[in-house]
């Protein structure tokens, strides 16, 4: 039987503390990404319900399911929600949303909600794009960068890699950190070539000492982290000439749960990213709900 190595847990959650019927304003955000979809419902600015599921081939159906799961057994219906904003790759497929907003604004807003108002740099490690966002001390986006073409730094690649290497996506990050030192990273220009190179590393080789599986994971994730560093680094510095200060850094998106990526970025930048009780994948949806 084939195991689904790329599988990560879906979830939904409802607040037991909030009576939505007493709320003055109910807003919702729906983030339909290429890999995962989230919905978040806020009652007077407080998170009331949320859901995180895998995006299917039918974005419209995904949008319906994710909202249905976020509403759960609360008794709330989409008609009860004052304003719904959609975002993400499939934002135009959210039939019940009246407005849509770009992911950059949504992730920035969501990150400040989840990690605190001191956040100055948000790095969304998404399925298809890496977004690095720099914020003013006030609530505006100062600058943002998306990964360049052919970049390896995307979540989708890690999913494919896990299938190839037959390692669970939830384990690969930790295992990759269990090495004495990071080996040379694989190619960082094209993830297809990166994967080919990684497969080559697994081959028992008469020419050189074979790498351990953990070293191979490290080699690949290091390459991914390196590409992401290139994207973060291009952001407008907080002040001219000071390009290496990335304090108050928040990771969002699915890869934010992969320590093999985040720990390496933290190590290279010399900072410890902020932590949050919220699931990092929810940032886009929460941000959209806040901007509704």
């Amino acid at each position, binding site marked *: 039987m084939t195991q689904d190595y790329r599988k990560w847990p879906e979830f939904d959650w409802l607040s037991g503390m909030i009576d939505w019927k007493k709320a003055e304003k109910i807003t919702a955000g729906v983030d339909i990404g290429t890999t995962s979809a989230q919905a978040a419902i806020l009652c007077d600015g407080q998170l009331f319900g949320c859901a995180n599921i895998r995006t299917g081939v039918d974005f419209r159906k995904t949008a319906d399911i994710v909202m249905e799961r976020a509403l759960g057994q609360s008794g709330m219906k989409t008609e009860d929600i004052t304003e719904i904003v959609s975002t993400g790759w499939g934002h135009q497929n959210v039939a019940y949303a009246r*407005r849509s907003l770009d992911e*950059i604004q949504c992730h920035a807003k969501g990150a400040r909600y989840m990690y605190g108002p001191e956040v100055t740099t948000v790095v969304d490690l998404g399925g298809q794009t890496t977004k690095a966002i720099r914020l003013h001390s006030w609530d505006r986006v100062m600058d943002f960068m*998306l990964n360049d073409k052919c970049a390896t730094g995307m979540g989708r690649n890690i999913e494919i890699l896990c299938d190839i290497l037959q390692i669970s996506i939830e384990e690969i990050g930790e295992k990759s950190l269990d090495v004495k030192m990071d080996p040379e990273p694989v190619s960082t220009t094209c993830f297809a070539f990166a994967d080919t190179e990684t497969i080559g590393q697994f081959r028992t080789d008469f020419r050189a000492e074979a790498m351990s599986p953990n070293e191979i994971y490290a080699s690949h994730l290091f390459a991914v982290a390196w590409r992401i560093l290139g994207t973060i680094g291009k952001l407008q510095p907080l002040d001219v000439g000071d390009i290496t200060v990335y304090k108050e850094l928040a990771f969002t998106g699915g890869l934010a749960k992969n320590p093999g990526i985040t720990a390496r970025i933290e190590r290279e930048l010399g900072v410890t990213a902020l932590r949050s009780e919220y699931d990092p994948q929810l940032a886009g949806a929460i941000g959209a709900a806040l901007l509704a």
Partner: protein
Amino acid sequence: MASFRECAAGRHRYAEEWKARTGGKVLGYFDTYFPEELAYAAGVLPVRILAEHEPDILSDKWIYASCYPAKDMINQFLKGRYDYLDGLITSEGYCQWMFHAYEVITNNKPELFSHYMFFPDYTEASSAKIALHSELEVLKGRIEQWTGKGITDEALDNAIEVYNTNRRLLRKIYELRRADRPAILGAEAMQVMLASQIMDKAEMNPLLAQYIEELEDRAPYEDRIRLMLVGSETHDTRLEELVESLGGNVVVDELDNGTSYCWNEVIPQKDRLLAIALRYLGRPHNPIKDCNWLRRPQHIFELFEDFTVDGVLVVKQIYCAPHGTDNYAVWKILRERNVPFHFFERDGSIPVDETGLRLEAFMNMLRPGLTRLAGWHTPLSI
């Protein structure tokens, strides 16, 4: 306008018809450092080689390149799209990719008249004038030999006048775009620019003058985010169109085949070749020719201020080494002067969703409020 748009879109048809109509020779050129006046004075139609975007099955055999325009140009020549050309010139104004394309094409099409013209990189050196003047002499001689007739001073004066008139008219369009609420958007203006690199300018000038008159009477568009396009030269207007579909407008550019193509004129003097040399040495330069004094970043900033631009799009062709090496200087000056800009790489095609996300987020960054409405691909009503 229909004629300019048609000309830019069906770029080969115009030259083919011109050739059939006049019996004249058509000369392809790769970059805007080629002094077209010399060819024009000999009765030759200079036509800029532009890339298309179509399946490419031919160029890989000849070139290992990641540069789509260079590959596509080879592809088009091998497919016979440019069979109407009688000659091909490179004036070393762009990059090695283009030079490589020139080499491959001329090796494949030995029947073409071809010429390599040197253009100084250290354009400010006083000796650069002498070197370029000499190169123009050589080019003039080669064209005379090819066409079998001499280029007279009168013909040169006429060519200079025709080209200067064209430049003035093209700049007039930029002047109209400078308005708070311009009556012409970026894509339409760029189509005119592209047409000007294909058409016989003596034919184009009256049409252009009439077109400008119509523009002056046209109702202005609503307020839009004002953007500026900087970077690798463009071969179509897809990016500008995408910007417009999202509520923005490219009001000015700093592209080799945009403002830089028409920004300065030839100041006539007795030594016609020196006059032409000075015009090309003194034009706003691309990164390859701006390798010493870094004048380009300041020029970009001046355009930014002059056209009351909200934000700058720095868009580089992927694997474009000249722009890849010049970005630092451009970013630095824009950052120091607090100019918002967004950088990305473009390829042959513009991926609508991915580029749309960038553009929308950038424009939202520039707007006072987040006002984007649902309807991703729906152009705003005009």
